[in-house]
Protein backbone atom coordinates (compact mmCIF):
# COMPACT_ATOMS: atom_id res chain seq x y z
CA UNK A 1 0.00 0.00 0.00
CA UNK A 2 1.50 3.29 -1.04
CA UNK A 3 1.95 6.09 1.45
CA UNK A 4 -0.22 9.09 1.18
CA UNK A 5 1.28 12.43 0.21
CA UNK A 6 0.86 13.71 3.79
CA UNK A 7 2.68 10.70 5.24
CA UNK A 8 5.56 11.28 2.84
CA UNK A 9 5.77 14.93 3.81
CA UNK A 10 5.76 14.02 7.51
CA UNK A 11 8.59 11.52 7.03
CA UNK A 12 10.58 14.09 5.08
CA UNK A 13 10.01 16.58 7.86
CA UNK A 14 11.41 14.16 10.44
CA UNK A 15 14.51 13.61 8.34
CA UNK A 16 15.06 17.34 8.00
CA UNK A 17 14.59 17.80 11.73
CA UNK A 18 17.17 15.12 12.58
CA UNK A 19 19.63 16.56 10.10
CA UNK A 20 19.20 20.05 11.50
CA UNK A 21 19.65 18.80 15.06
CA UNK A 22 22.82 16.97 14.07
CA UNK A 23 24.17 20.09 12.42
CA UNK A 24 23.43 22.19 15.50
CA UNK A 25 25.06 19.59 17.78
CA UNK A 26 28.17 19.56 15.65
CA UNK A 27 28.29 23.32 15.84
CA UNK A 28 28.29 23.44 19.64
CA UNK A 29 30.43 20.39 20.48
CA UNK A 30 34.15 21.09 20.01
CA UNK A 31 35.99 18.88 17.61
CA UNK A 32 38.02 16.06 19.12
CA UNK A 33 40.68 16.25 16.42
CA UNK A 34 44.09 17.30 17.74
CA UNK A 35 45.95 20.25 16.32
CA UNK A 36 48.92 19.62 14.08
CA UNK A 37 51.27 20.96 16.74
CA UNK A 38 50.42 18.30 19.32
CA UNK A 39 52.94 15.57 20.07
CA UNK A 40 50.95 12.40 20.48
CA UNK A 41 53.56 9.69 20.95
CA UNK A 42 57.16 8.61 21.02
CA UNK A 43 59.38 9.12 18.00
CA UNK A 44 57.75 12.25 16.71
CA UNK A 45 59.48 15.39 15.60
CA UNK A 46 58.46 18.99 15.81
CA UNK A 47 59.34 21.50 13.13
CA UNK A 48 58.22 24.84 11.84
CA UNK A 49 58.49 23.79 8.23
CA UNK A 50 55.59 21.89 6.78
CA UNK A 51 55.45 18.22 7.51
CA UNK A 52 53.91 17.11 4.23
CA UNK A 53 52.72 13.57 4.58
CA UNK A 54 55.17 12.63 7.31
CA UNK A 55 52.97 11.12 10.01
CA UNK A 56 55.76 11.27 12.58
CA UNK A 57 56.10 15.01 12.14
CA UNK A 58 54.17 17.76 13.90
CA UNK A 59 54.01 21.32 12.59
CA UNK A 60 54.80 23.81 15.32
CA UNK A 61 52.37 26.59 16.03
CA UNK A 62 54.10 29.84 16.93
CA UNK A 63 57.34 27.91 17.07
CA UNK A 64 56.10 25.42 19.61
CA UNK A 65 54.76 21.89 19.88
CA UNK A 66 53.09 20.62 23.00
CA UNK A 67 51.93 17.49 24.65
CA UNK A 68 48.20 16.97 24.88
CA UNK A 69 48.56 14.08 27.29
CA UNK A 70 51.11 11.78 28.84
CA UNK A 71 53.42 9.87 26.51
CA UNK A 72 54.57 6.38 27.31
CA UNK A 73 57.58 4.97 25.50
CA UNK A 74 57.73 1.20 25.36
CA UNK A 75 60.38 0.52 22.74
CA UNK A 76 63.70 -0.71 24.03
CA UNK A 77 65.81 0.72 21.24
CA UNK A 78 65.60 3.40 18.61
CA UNK A 79 67.90 5.31 16.35
CA UNK A 80 66.04 8.52 17.09
CA UNK A 81 64.99 10.31 20.29
CA UNK A 82 61.48 10.16 21.66
CA UNK A 83 60.97 13.77 20.57
CA UNK A 84 63.06 15.74 18.09
CA UNK A 85 63.08 19.53 17.94
CA UNK A 86 64.19 20.14 14.38
CA UNK A 87 64.47 23.79 13.47
CA UNK A 88 64.54 25.80 16.67
CA UNK A 89 61.11 24.76 17.82
CA UNK A 90 60.11 24.46 21.47
CA UNK A 91 58.48 21.64 23.35
CA UNK A 92 55.91 22.48 26.00
CA UNK A 93 55.15 19.52 28.24
CA UNK A 94 52.04 21.39 29.40
CA UNK A 95 51.76 19.46 32.63
CA UNK A 96 52.13 16.05 31.02
CA UNK A 97 54.67 13.30 31.57
CA UNK A 98 57.00 11.34 29.32
CA UNK A 99 57.70 7.89 30.69
CA UNK A 100 59.74 4.87 29.68
CA UNK A 101 58.07 1.68 30.81
CA UNK A 102 60.49 -0.70 29.10
CA UNK A 103 63.39 -2.28 30.96
CA UNK A 104 65.58 0.22 29.17
CA UNK A 105 64.80 2.91 26.60
CA UNK A 106 68.08 3.23 24.76
CA UNK A 107 67.52 6.68 23.33
CA UNK A 108 67.23 10.28 24.55
CA UNK A 109 63.92 11.77 25.54
CA UNK A 110 64.42 15.04 23.68
CA UNK A 111 67.16 16.13 21.29
CA UNK A 112 67.55 19.58 19.78
CA UNK A 113 68.84 20.06 16.26
CA UNK A 114 69.11 23.81 15.97
CA UNK A 115 69.58 27.02 17.93
CA UNK A 116 66.92 28.56 20.11
CA UNK A 117 64.95 25.50 21.19
CA UNK A 118 63.42 25.26 24.61
CA UNK A 119 61.99 22.39 26.62
CA UNK A 120 59.61 23.84 29.14
CA UNK A 121 56.45 23.25 31.07
CA UNK A 122 53.66 25.76 31.15
CA UNK A 123 51.26 23.58 33.12
CA UNK A 124 51.40 21.85 36.48
CA UNK A 125 53.84 19.06 37.17
CA UNK A 126 55.64 17.55 34.20
CA UNK A 127 57.84 14.54 34.88
CA UNK A 128 60.28 12.77 32.61
CA UNK A 129 60.93 9.38 34.15
CA UNK A 130 62.15 5.90 33.47
CA UNK A 131 65.42 4.40 32.22
CA UNK A 132 66.09 6.55 29.20
CA UNK A 133 69.75 6.87 28.28
CA UNK A 134 69.51 10.62 28.20
CA UNK A 135 67.07 13.27 29.33
CA UNK A 136 67.44 16.36 27.16
CA UNK A 137 70.37 16.84 24.82
CA UNK A 138 70.59 20.45 23.72
CA UNK A 139 73.39 19.66 21.29
CA UNK A 140 75.45 22.67 22.42
CA UNK A 141 73.14 24.99 20.51
CA UNK A 142 72.99 28.61 21.61
CA UNK A 143 69.72 29.74 23.07
CA UNK A 144 68.88 26.26 24.27
CA UNK A 145 66.83 26.21 27.46
CA UNK A 146 65.46 23.55 29.80
CA UNK A 147 63.17 24.85 32.53
CA UNK A 148 60.43 23.83 34.93
CA UNK A 149 60.75 20.10 34.32
CA UNK A 150 61.16 17.24 36.79
CA UNK A 151 63.55 14.46 35.85
CA UNK A 152 62.92 11.39 37.96
CA UNK A 153 65.36 8.53 37.55
CA UNK A 154 65.21 9.52 33.94
CA UNK A 155 68.71 8.78 32.84
CA UNK A 156 72.31 8.64 33.84
CA UNK A 157 72.58 12.04 32.23
CA UNK A 158 69.62 14.29 32.88
CA UNK A 159 70.45 17.33 30.77
CA UNK A 160 73.44 17.89 28.57
CA UNK A 161 75.06 20.64 26.57
CA UNK A 162 72.45 23.33 27.16
CA UNK A 163 72.98 27.04 27.49
CA UNK A 164 70.42 27.59 30.24
CA UNK A 165 69.15 25.09 32.79
CA UNK A 166 66.85 26.56 35.38
CA UNK A 167 64.05 25.77 37.79
CA UNK A 168 64.22 22.01 37.34
CA UNK A 169 64.20 19.05 39.70
CA UNK A 170 66.69 16.28 39.02
CA UNK A 171 66.14 13.11 41.01
CA UNK A 172 68.61 10.43 40.03
CA UNK A 173 67.78 8.15 42.92
CA UNK A 174 67.76 4.62 41.64
CA UNK A 175 69.18 5.61 38.28
CA UNK A 176 72.69 5.12 37.03
CA UNK A 177 73.85 7.96 39.26
CA UNK A 178 75.62 9.82 36.52
CA UNK A 179 75.37 13.53 35.95
Amino acid at each position, binding site marked *: MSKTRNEKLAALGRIVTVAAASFMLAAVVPTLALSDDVITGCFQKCQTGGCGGDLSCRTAANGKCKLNGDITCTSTSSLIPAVQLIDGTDLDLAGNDITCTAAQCNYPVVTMYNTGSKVMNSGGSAVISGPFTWGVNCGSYSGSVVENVTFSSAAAIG*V*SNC*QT*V*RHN*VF*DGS*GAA*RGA
Partner: protein
Amino acid sequence: MIAAGVTSTDSVTDNFLTGYDYPIVTSSTQPIDVLRNVINTSATLYPITLGSGVTSVYGNVKRNVFFGGATSLFLVGGSTTDHVIYEGNYCDPNESSCSACLSQGRCQPYTSPFLGN
Protein backbone atom coordinates in the same frame (compact mmCIF):
# COMPACT_ATOMS: atom_id res chain seq x y z
CA MET B 1 73.72 17.51 34.11
CA ILE B 2 76.60 18.27 31.87
CA ALA B 3 77.32 21.75 30.62
CA ALA B 4 79.74 21.51 27.76
CA GLY B 5 80.10 25.20 27.13
CA VAL B 6 77.60 26.54 24.64
CA THR B 7 78.27 30.25 24.94
CA SER B 8 79.94 32.61 27.36
CA THR B 9 76.64 33.00 29.19
CA ASP B 10 75.83 29.42 30.10
CA SER B 11 73.96 29.08 33.36
CA VAL B 12 72.69 26.42 35.71
CA THR B 13 70.39 28.13 38.15
CA ASP B 14 67.68 27.41 40.68
CA ASN B 15 67.61 23.64 40.32
CA PHE B 16 67.20 20.90 42.89
CA LEU B 17 69.39 17.87 42.36
CA THR B 18 69.56 14.59 44.25
CA GLY B 19 70.78 11.06 43.63
CA TYR B 20 73.67 11.70 41.28
CA ASP B 21 77.37 10.98 41.63
CA TYR B 22 78.15 14.12 39.64
CA PRO B 23 75.11 16.40 39.77
CA ILE B 24 76.64 19.30 37.87
CA VAL B 25 79.54 18.87 35.48
CA THR B 26 81.09 21.51 33.27
CA SER B 27 83.57 20.49 30.66
CA SER B 28 84.74 23.49 28.75
CA THR B 29 86.69 26.69 29.06
CA GLN B 30 83.59 28.82 28.57
CA PRO B 31 82.45 30.90 31.54
CA ILE B 32 79.42 29.59 33.37
CA ASP B 33 77.21 30.69 36.22
CA VAL B 34 76.18 28.05 38.73
CA LEU B 35 73.76 29.87 40.98
CA ARG B 36 71.20 29.09 43.67
CA ASN B 37 71.06 25.35 43.21
CA VAL B 38 70.13 23.04 46.07
CA ILE B 39 72.04 19.78 45.99
CA ASN B 40 71.50 16.73 48.15
CA THR B 41 75.05 15.50 48.35
CA SER B 42 74.43 12.33 50.33
CA ALA B 43 76.65 9.66 48.81
CA THR B 44 77.57 12.07 46.05
CA LEU B 45 81.12 12.06 44.81
CA TYR B 46 81.51 15.60 43.52
CA PRO B 47 78.42 17.85 43.54
CA ILE B 48 79.98 20.46 41.29
CA THR B 49 82.73 19.53 38.86
CA LEU B 50 84.37 22.35 36.96
CA GLY B 51 86.37 21.67 33.84
CA SER B 52 90.10 22.04 33.72
CA GLY B 53 92.35 24.27 31.71
CA VAL B 54 90.51 27.55 32.20
CA THR B 55 92.90 30.48 32.03
CA SER B 56 90.57 33.43 32.43
CA VAL B 57 87.55 34.26 34.57
CA TYR B 58 85.49 31.14 34.51
CA GLY B 59 82.27 32.32 36.02
CA ASN B 60 80.37 32.42 39.23
CA VAL B 61 79.53 29.72 41.70
CA LYS B 62 77.24 31.48 44.12
CA ARG B 63 74.44 30.82 46.56
CA ASN B 64 74.35 27.08 46.15
CA VAL B 65 73.34 24.93 49.12
CA PHE B 66 74.75 21.49 49.87
CA PHE B 67 72.97 19.01 52.12
CA GLY B 68 74.91 16.00 53.34
CA GLY B 69 78.39 14.72 52.75
CA ALA B 70 80.37 14.09 49.61
CA THR B 71 83.86 13.16 48.58
CA SER B 72 84.44 16.82 47.90
CA LEU B 73 81.94 19.58 47.23
CA PHE B 74 83.95 20.88 44.30
CA LEU B 75 86.19 19.14 41.85
CA VAL B 76 88.11 21.83 40.05
CA GLY B 77 90.60 20.90 37.43
CA GLY B 78 93.99 22.34 36.64
CA SER B 79 94.36 26.07 36.18
CA THR B 80 90.61 26.54 36.50
CA THR B 81 91.14 26.56 40.24
CA ASP B 82 92.28 30.16 40.17
CA HIS B 83 89.54 31.49 37.91
CA VAL B 84 86.29 30.84 39.70
CA ILE B 85 84.40 33.30 41.89
CA TYR B 86 82.80 31.62 44.90
CA GLU B 87 80.30 33.42 47.06
CA GLY B 88 77.62 32.42 49.53
CA ASN B 89 77.74 28.66 49.01
CA TYR B 90 76.40 27.01 52.13
CA CYS B 91 77.17 23.55 53.49
CA ASP B 92 76.83 21.47 56.64
CA PRO B 93 79.86 22.15 58.86
CA ASN B 94 79.46 18.72 60.45
CA GLU B 95 80.51 17.12 57.18
CA SER B 96 84.20 16.74 56.42
CA SER B 97 83.69 17.79 52.82
CA CYS B 98 82.17 21.00 54.07
CA SER B 99 85.06 21.60 56.43
CA ALA B 100 87.46 21.32 53.55
CA CYS B 101 85.34 23.70 51.49
CA LEU B 102 85.29 26.18 54.36
CA SER B 103 89.04 26.10 54.67
CA GLN B 104 89.36 26.71 50.94
CA GLY B 105 87.19 29.79 51.24
CA ARG B 106 84.61 28.44 48.86
CA CYS B 107 81.80 27.80 51.34
CA GLN B 108 80.08 29.16 54.37
CA PRO B 109 78.54 27.09 57.16
CA TYR B 110 74.81 27.06 57.48
CA THR B 111 72.84 26.73 60.66
CA SER B 112 70.28 24.07 60.07
CA PRO B 113 66.77 25.09 61.00
CA PHE B 114 65.85 21.43 61.41
CA LEU B 115 68.15 20.39 64.26
CA GLY B 116 66.48 19.18 67.43
CA ASN B 117 66.83 16.82 70.32
